[in-house]
């Protein structure tokens, strides 16, 4: 334990500029230290706001809404930001055989997670990621009437953009957290915590990172009742049904967009996700809780990049573990 406690030491002695704003449907927190921190944080928020403006499903003016309205009827040109996210989504969809799919929007609408949009053409029931066609020059066309939502990936991209802007302003120690999509920069060791699925107010230290991204997807804040069942906003792309609930997935990767997207792949099918995790040199942790017993599955380099299960017992609250 001593390692952890000591390692976490340096950062708080420096003055840190921290701000939080409601964006991307969550609370985005940006922290930076250094002489230009104030301006850098401001510009980083501008970058996040831009991603929000371009890729919001709710905003009828966003590029995403333009795509959903018009791309089924002809080529639409988008910004380089939207293009980058779409390209990453499509590459991942191809690699995973459709375990990552941005066309699950109609399923999310019918479960009440996304608003009904009357300005979009009626979605065809037979479209998937293969019917989103990207062409050179930032062109996008839907070959069937699909409806896309970038909720599973755009938040990670926004975090990456913010980090990019911070770096451009000469910031070397920073962190950006968009409601669970986290990326840190710098040499300081930081502990990252995850929430316990059945009791989200309980935090568990999960990992030490210096530079890198961690994204967690779970449903504990977003469960809904739908037709008498508890459902989650995590849709299995193949069946178009909600994934099993009560599971929390954390992925650690080079950048946050990939980490964010990979959490969805792991939720859909952990076994199949293994190859994709390995290809991105990513690590993952699944926490599942049934009747108070937590099951942990870890995917990392330690065991030849495959899933291994560990039984972990939480220390009863109040027990001293440090020192």
């Amino acid at each position, binding site marked *: 334990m001593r390692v*952890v406690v000591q390692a*976490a030491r*340096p950062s708080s002695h420096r003055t840190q500029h921290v701000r939080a704003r409601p964006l991307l449907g969550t609370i985005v927190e940006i922290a930076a230290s250094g002489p230009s921190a104030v301006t850098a944080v401001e510009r980083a928020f501008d970058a996040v706001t831009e991603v929000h403006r371009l890729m919001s499903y709710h905003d009828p003016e966003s590029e995403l809404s333009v795509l959903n309205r018009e791309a089924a009827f002809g080529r639409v040109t988008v910004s380089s930001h939207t293009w980058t996210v779409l390209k990453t989504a499509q590459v991942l969809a191809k690699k995973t055989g459709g375990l990552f799919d941005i066309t699950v929007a109609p399923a999310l609408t019918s479960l009440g997670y996304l608003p009904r949009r009357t300005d979009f053409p009626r979605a065809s029931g037979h479209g998937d990621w293969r019917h989103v066609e990207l062409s050179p020059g930032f062109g996008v066309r839907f070959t069937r009437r699909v409806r896309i939502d970038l909720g599973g990936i755009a938040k990670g991209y926004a975090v990456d953009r913010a980090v990019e802007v911070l770096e451009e302003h000469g910031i070397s120690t920073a962190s950006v957290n968009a*409601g*669970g999509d986290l990326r840190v920069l710098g040499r300081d060791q930081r502990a990252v915590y995850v929430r316990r699925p059945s009791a989200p107010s309980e*935090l568990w230290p999960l*990992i030490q990172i210096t530079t890198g991204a961690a994204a*967690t997807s779970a449903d504990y804040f977003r469960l809904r009742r739908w037709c008498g069942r508890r459902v989650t906003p995590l849709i299995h792309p193949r069946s178009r049904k909600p994934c099993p609930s009560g599971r929390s997935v954390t992925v650690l990767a080079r950048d946050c967009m990939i980490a964010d997207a990979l959490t969805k792949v792991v939720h859909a099918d952990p076994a199949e996700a293994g190859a994709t995790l390995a290809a991105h040199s990513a690590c993952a942790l699944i926490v599942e809780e049934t009747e108070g017993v937590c099951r942990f599955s870890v995917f990392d380099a330690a065991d030849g990049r495959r899933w291994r299960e560990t039984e*972990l017992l939480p220390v009863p609250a109040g027990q001293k573990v440090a020192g």
Partner: protein
Amino acid sequence: MKYESWYWLPALAAPLVISMPGAYAVTYLTVEQAQQALFPGASEFSRLDIELTARQKKAIEERADVRVRNTKPAIWRVAAEGRQLGWFLVDRVLGKHEFITYAVALDTQGAVRGVEILEYRETHGGAVRKARWRAQFVGKGAEDRLELGRGIVNIAGATLSCKHVTEGIRRLIATFEEVLK
């Protein structure tokens, strides 16, 4: 990025997890700091003494489609050298899991100039739990570690919703329309 640069915490590697019943809170800005951040250069912030009448309350609720619980909104008129720059409003929302204080800057026309979160607090737990939580980390550098755990900053949790903040902002805009305009 070097992958050796991050590793599972010993707690996890050696099958053991420290559970932290976490009541955590973070203050980003005080009211005064937020005033300066949202209206840099403004010199006068005069707090208005407003109490919403039942009729105004109803009108705001209808306009914003959000309930009004606080009939004494915290509103400042902002000016620099006698010229009005806009309005500064502070409000708080209580979500399912969190308690958020935030500030909104409106220009003289009622358009949002900026939003800042002032304070974020998880509503679970409380002093007792917090004390217990702190007790887990007695020893060297414990304070630093607490610092790390207290913000939203290092929690890779599931998406926190800002639905209530969004609704709150709508309520404040409606308050402007009904009371300040």
